[in-house]
């Protein structure tokens, strides 16, 4: 960041985590990710403050703030709020202009977004009102098995055949997982089965939106290489990866900051 650069911020208040990005001179200056609390307003202030501190700048230096995500209406200090679909499309297009399909797998909802050459949203499909195919489903299952998500990812790559998880519903899937544990099915098999269940669900969204290459996966679950690999296998394609320094969870907040940049 150079002196005099216009600085904007994007605040993405998700159901599980909240993200803030400080953007200047065409790049990410800093970002912050934290858990969402029951008060989206407080969470927004907290992640924003952390991102500001990390960038070493004051609030007053930020010319425009855009809120997005589930709790965007509660980002009281934002100049404007924009839906997460537009923000994810904007963020992904900025990072990877060749991308035509964005698969955002968040805590509460999963979105497949088709974007055109200019980065505008052409179509989208969402999986909302149901935890199947989301990060929340995996959190729920990890808790049932008394594991961390990180452990689930490592166990995914151990030897084993995916167990059959027939229920899409998180409530019923939990019973199935408990039964499988009682039947002494190895954990790697159960985890592969769970990842397959999530990936199957997501693959239908991707197909419904048109599945144009290149495809990128964003959101918290993009960090779960077990799910990403399984999704690639189901869709029979290879996804493009975000530039190394970019955390896939901040793409929506980045898009929000870029929208703010374009408007201010």
């Amino acid at each position, binding site marked *: 960041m150079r002196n005099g650069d216009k600085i904007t911020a994007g605040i993405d208040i998700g159901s599980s985590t909240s993200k803030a990005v400080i953007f200047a001179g065409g790049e990410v200056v800093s970002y912050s990710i934290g858990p969402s609390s029951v008060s989206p307003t407080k969470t927004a202030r907290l992640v924003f403050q952390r991102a500001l501190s990390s960038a070493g700048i004051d609030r007053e230096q930020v010319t425009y703030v855009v809120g997005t995500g589930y709790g965007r209406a509660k980002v009281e200090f934002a100049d404007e709020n*924009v839906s997460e*679909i*537009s923000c994810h499309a904007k963020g992904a297009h900025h990072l990877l202009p060749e991308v035509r399909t964005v698969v955002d797998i968040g805590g509460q909802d999963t979105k497949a977004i088709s974007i055109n050459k200019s980065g505008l949203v052409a179509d*989208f499909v969402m999986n909302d009102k149901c935890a199947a195919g989301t990060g929340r489903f995996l959190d729920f299952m990890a808790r049932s098995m008394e594991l961390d998500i990180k452990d689930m990812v490592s166990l995914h790559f151990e030897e084993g055949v995916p167990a059959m998880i027939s229920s899409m519903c998180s409530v019923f899937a939990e019973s199935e997982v408990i039964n499988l544990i009682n039947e002494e099915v190895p954990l790697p098999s159960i985890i592969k089965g769970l990842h397959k269940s999530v990936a199957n669900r997501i693959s239908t969204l991707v197909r419904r939106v048109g599945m144009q290459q290149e495809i990128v996966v964003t959101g918290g679950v993009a960090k779960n290489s077990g799910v990403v690999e399984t999704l690639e296998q189901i869709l029979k394609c290879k996804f493009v990866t975000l530039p190394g320094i970019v955390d896939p969870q901040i793409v929506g907040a980045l898009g929000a900051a870029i929208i703010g940049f374009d408007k201010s």
Partner: protein
Amino acid sequence: MTVLGKERAIELETIHAGVSKMMERHMGDPDSRAFNAFLLAAKMATEGIIAALDNGTSVISYNLGGMPELLLALGENENEIFPFAMEKVVALQSLVGDPMYNMEAIDMAEAQGMSSDVCSTDRATLGNLTKRFLPEASCSVFVTAPCDSQTAMAESLKEITGEDVFLIDIPHHHGEREINYVAGQLKEEIEFLEEKSGKKLNWDRLKEICQESNRMIDQALDWLEWRKAIPCPQTAKMLSTMYILLQDGSGSKGATWVASEFAADAKERVQAGKSAVPGGEKIRAIWFGSPPWYNISFYDWMENELGMVVPVDMFSYVVPEMYVDTSTTETLLHDLARKQIYMPMGRHFTGAPEYFVDDLVRAAADYKADCALIAGHVSCKHAWGVLGLLKEALREADIPALAFEFDLFDPRVTTIETLQQEFKRFAEDIVLPRIGK
């Protein structure tokens, strides 16, 4: 208004009171001329049913996809038969009465074993039949349009009422061969009606009735022409009522008058440069599928909040193939058969998907639409079945589309708030950025 000794009239009185109240509210509003005409028609339709109940008029009922012309022409004189479009009570209850009655009727039909896959229009009608507040008919005539639910409804009707039902098979294609096939069935239907009602079909009156129907089609086509104007001159909420006029009022002077009010109002507003949206229209959308009749004020929300107008929808999409050549008995039957096949909704949902897909793409081009709204009434399985083809055709035509799920009469399937959220997202994320607004 009371109905002589008939406890069952309470539901109809609810509609009557509802529509009267709406008329009082809208009557002085200069922007509501066309909608007021529909309200007057709704009031008259309700009074017609109540009068049929009170006077013991001979009733023949018909189903959602049908038309009344043949029934109106039975007997030497006018009004010897009351043609009763059974489902209109459900529509009126939702539009101008109390939608809670429909939910109760839907639940009643399901409790009797009717599948929840069957259209809620038919489930609610079956519930109404079970409650026994609809006029008893001497017989019924059905067509297998607009959807498969009609066959289930015809069978259920026979079982509940013991009535004889004549069922016309609407074929898969819409060509000359198929029109002749339906015309042949109309001949058989006439024999059935004459036998069951004891009244002969008066061909001279049928000719006059069809001439009146043609005058209504004239007005409807004129109206649609005016609605092509930019900005769109009228609100979307009266669009789908055209289907009620066609299905319930074809051949009657009252319905022709309502259609002429629609057209005259549109013309007047275009000439005065008036828009359906006070703040200016931002998005032009084609609504294809069933309307949100469980809360018709959704259209007001679309217009006021999103600046989204609907110049034409599936229910109002009248086409010239609906004219009837009245020169001979053969042309009358041939063209009534063609009209039956080309009724909106029926021509879209019954038969090859091309009719559905091509109509939507043509409407989008003719009315200069920025997007399409594929209104997925949950029971319209035939429509959901062609969703992929529809989306593909719209993608090729570069028209963004929103496909959403709801039930036209049952608010429990998708709330208005959820619909609003989906529409807002679609408008803000896809349509407005594309058109640079």
